[in-house]
């Protein structure tokens, strides 16, 4: 009794003096030799290559083996954790780390399928992340992050056009419709519920609806029909003059870029700001393609890493998440020819040497600078995604 009291008080004192470092040392020791199965969308070669690079570094530095399990859709991983819970497999789950945000995060968090909170105790998070820099760091599509996932990168919607066929691209939803009416069949967007398609709906809603403030509230608490009426009126008009008469839609950003290259469409969109440069480099787009954003700003968000509740390598997974937040990993990730994904670190919190490295990053010929990217519109509350998708499918997919 007495002994344990003493031990507890020693632990408490230790915790007061230097809790994080001591804990982190434990985590590092525990992580050694672990294998972390990282479930991440595997549709892009450059991203897979980046993860492979990170895996090699992590193996060298921490003796943790990182294995990417390539997904076609993040919800496959959500499904798997769910199946494991169904079978009562509450330890030794098959997934140790997953790339996640938005609805998938909310679904997992609400159903207690996540391990944590862990991100605020990661050393690199404490050193380099400024939670106030962006709302999306603490509010993932309006769902409080609460330390249950660790930020990895930031994305923003960009548009692409081929300067050889279209010199002055439409820079707002209204201009886009006007352009489509002049050039029938050359404008389209990905099919919701593909996330970029849903984002297009949200972007249009921001620009068209007079009730912007309502978008940050849960959809149940507002008048959905009234707020979204201008959106559907707009889409009704757009679909009549859209690619393939609005009867079918591309399935992803990648397909849009292919259609842009084939000159079936005139404007493509992506959530990856360096997409155009990367694809030009690969020979998938002509070098006359350029990126641009709408004058009123475009939607941006943060993507995260989360650990399922039944992971068998939580220590290893935290080591990986921490490495991904290091300046080394974030600089590499923001390099346009590697991935071009925006850093989540606060520039002012970085040491001068790392700031210089960020400054020195080259940009691809079709990648916009941070200033050119302009204003970021926040994601609406995550409940909007489902509601918009449902209504869209009811109206246009039956």
């Amino acid at each position, binding site marked *: 009794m007495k002994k344990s009291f003493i031990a507890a008080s020693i632990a408490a004192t230790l915790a007061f003096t230097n809790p994080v470092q001591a804990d982190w040392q434990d985590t590092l020791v525990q992580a050694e030799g672990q294998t972390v*199965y990282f*479930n991440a969308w*595997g*549709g*892009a*070669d450059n991203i897979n290559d980046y993860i492979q690079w990170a895996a090699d570094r992590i193996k060298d530095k921490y003796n943790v083996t990182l*294995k990417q*399990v*390539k*997904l*076609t*859709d993040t*919800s*496959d991983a*959500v*499904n*798997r954790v*769910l*199946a*494991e819970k*169904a*079978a*009562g*497999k509450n330890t030794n789950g*098959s*997934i140790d780390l997953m790339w996640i945000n938005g*609805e*998938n995060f*909310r*679904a997992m968090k609400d*159903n207690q399928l996540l391990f944590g909170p862990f991100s605020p105790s990661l050393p690199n998070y404490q050193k380099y992340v400024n939670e106030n820099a962006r709302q999306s760091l603490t509010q993932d599509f309006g769902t409080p992050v609460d330390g249950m996932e660790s930020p990895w990168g930031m994305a923003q919607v960009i548009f692409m056009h081929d300067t050889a066929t279209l010199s002055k691209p439409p820079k707002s939803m209204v201009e886009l419709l006007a352009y489509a009416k002049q050039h*029938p069949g*050359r404008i389209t967007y990905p*099919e919701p519920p593909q996330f970029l398609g849903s984002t297009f709906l949200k972007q249009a809603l921001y620009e068209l609806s007079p009730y912007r403030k309502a978008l940050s509230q849960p959809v149940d608490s507002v008048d959905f029909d009234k707020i979204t009426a201008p959106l559907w009126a707009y889409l009704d008009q757009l679909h009549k003059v859209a*690619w*393939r*008469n609005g*009867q*079918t*839609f*591309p*399935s*992803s950003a*990648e*397909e849009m870029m*292919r*259609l842009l*290259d*084939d*000159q*079936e469409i005139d404007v493509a969109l992506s959530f990856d700001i360096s997409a155009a440069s990367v694809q030009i480099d*690969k*020979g*998938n787009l*002509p070098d006359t393609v350029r990126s641009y954003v709408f004058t009123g700003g475009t939607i941006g968000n943060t993507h995260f890493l989360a650990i399922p509740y039944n992971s068998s390598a939580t220590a290893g997974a935290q080591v990986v998440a921490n490495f991904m937040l290091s300046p080394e990993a974030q600089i590499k990730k923001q390099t346009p020819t590697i991935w071009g994904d925006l850093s989540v670190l606060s520039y002012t919190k970085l040491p001068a040497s790392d700031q210089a490295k960020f400054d020195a990053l080259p940009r691809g010929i079709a990648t916009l600078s941070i200033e050119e990217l302009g204003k970021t519109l926040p994601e609406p509350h995550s409940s909007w995604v*489902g509601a918009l998708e449902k209504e869209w*499918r*009811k109206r246009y*997919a*039956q």
Partner: protein
Amino acid sequence: MPLQKIKWTQWTIALLLAFPIAIGLIGTLLPAFQYFPPLGQDTLSLDPWHSLFEQGEFYASLKLTLITGIGAPILALWFSLSLLAWGYQRPFFRKIETLLSPILAIPHAAIAIGLLFLLSPSGWLVRLFSPWLTGFDRPPNWISVQDPYGASLIFALVIKEMPYLLFVMLGAMKSLQASDTIKACQALGYRRFTLWRKVLIPQLYPIIRLPIFIVIAFSLTVVDLALIIGPNTPSTLAVTLFRWFNDPDLDRRLMASAGAVFLMLVIALVLGGWELAHQIFSQATRPERSNGKRSGLSDNLLRSGVILGLMSLLSGFIALALLPIWSLAKRWRFPDALPAKWTWDNIDRATPLLIELTSNTLLIALSATLLACFIALLMLETLRRSTHYSTNKSSGYNKPHLFDWLIYVPILLPQIGFLFGLHVLLIYLNLNGDLCAIIALHLMYVLPYVYLTLKGPYLAYEENYLQEANRLNRQTWRNYVRIKLAMLKPALFTAFAIGFSVSIAQYLPTLIAGEGRYSTLTTEAVARAASGDRKQVGSMALLQAFFPVMIFWMAQYIPPRWTRWRLALKTSLRRINPRRNKKCSA
């Protein structure tokens, strides 16, 4: 096979087959009635069904599924019967037969991607004629693929299914003594198409009924093909369910399970309706068939089927030929009919990955197929010796055995839903993500095809050869292998080749059992297809097609030469070491 305990073996196999099926079914049925503890749902109710029937998209998807799922098998059957009637036993048709195997072997996803590139408005066909003939500097705004009526999906399904049906029919013809019938009918003055229509097809149909059912179930439930080339506003029911299962809103899973159960009912109803329609059709055409006329107007149906069938075969081949070109292309833009810039980069970059994928793929496919061949032989042997078969043998037609139904359940059930239920079992057994689990799940899908291919030749085997051998010496196992199996070589090789290609094509089973930890050429190709990058998909599809085609080619090439090679090897060995052989023969 000198097998003891026939009954015991039979029941063990039946149980082994039935167990996963039962678990998969329960795993789909319970959530459909709101019982799903991980989401905190543990009271039975009809709510998932209510929400299913409230979805407008459900009805639209169902309509589309019925159109494509019934249309495609009808067309595929029509074309393949026509082609068979037109070319059977003609020399040039042998060449077409050997060409069938590539299409048979290539996974659906690859074919769909190739067709998409062939037929889309910016696709190869339009490019070929642009701009010099069409005047198109840019692709037209046509809806030639992913059309809302599902025509392009039907076309893709027909291209995939027709070769399979033709393959099965060619196998089945052997048991019909067709050449005698053809000779007799031709002597009576019947035209080629007429005698097929009136005499041979009605005999052929009962034998190939099960393969047709498989084709129908496949058309109604296919996911990957429909994802790529099917319409998306709405999609087919299977794709809609697939999306609901993957919806971040976890409660939608319950509704999706109800949908999966409904899809099973749809399959059962369509199959029943198909049989009924067949009965009515054959009743209605009976007077015409027996009117004694040596030709008829309906012959034109078969004649046009030949032309349409050849056209779809041709499109299939072109689509396949285009894929490898993509893997060598650097720039290939509309309206160029061939790439403007070529490169080895795509293949170079993919090589290390391809090696890993290939070894995984081969390991899984070879073990699953070998196991399937072994189990199929066991099953057929017990079937041959079971009482009801031997008594019916003389009548030439036998009632379907328990196996015949059990074994087809997995391929008749929609993979979505069913596999999710099965996944829970794998987790209980702690086999999830294990290579053995992948092989076991593949086995479940490979076995029916192997069994089906072997069944005819195995049961038709003239048992006297084996009995004679057993009378000469008592080494029954040795005789079984060296006499019976050796004589069944062609059928065994073909069954192996079919099983192998089925295994290579599996997408959802690999993904679910392997939990993504083991990638194969197919899982990777479908993942890449999602990105729409035809260059990568091109090199994947090339390899994906290479191995099955190789095996198919070997299955046709090796059996006739086996004995010659074996004897040549023996003679050359004897020449090297004459003394040892002398001792042996003494």
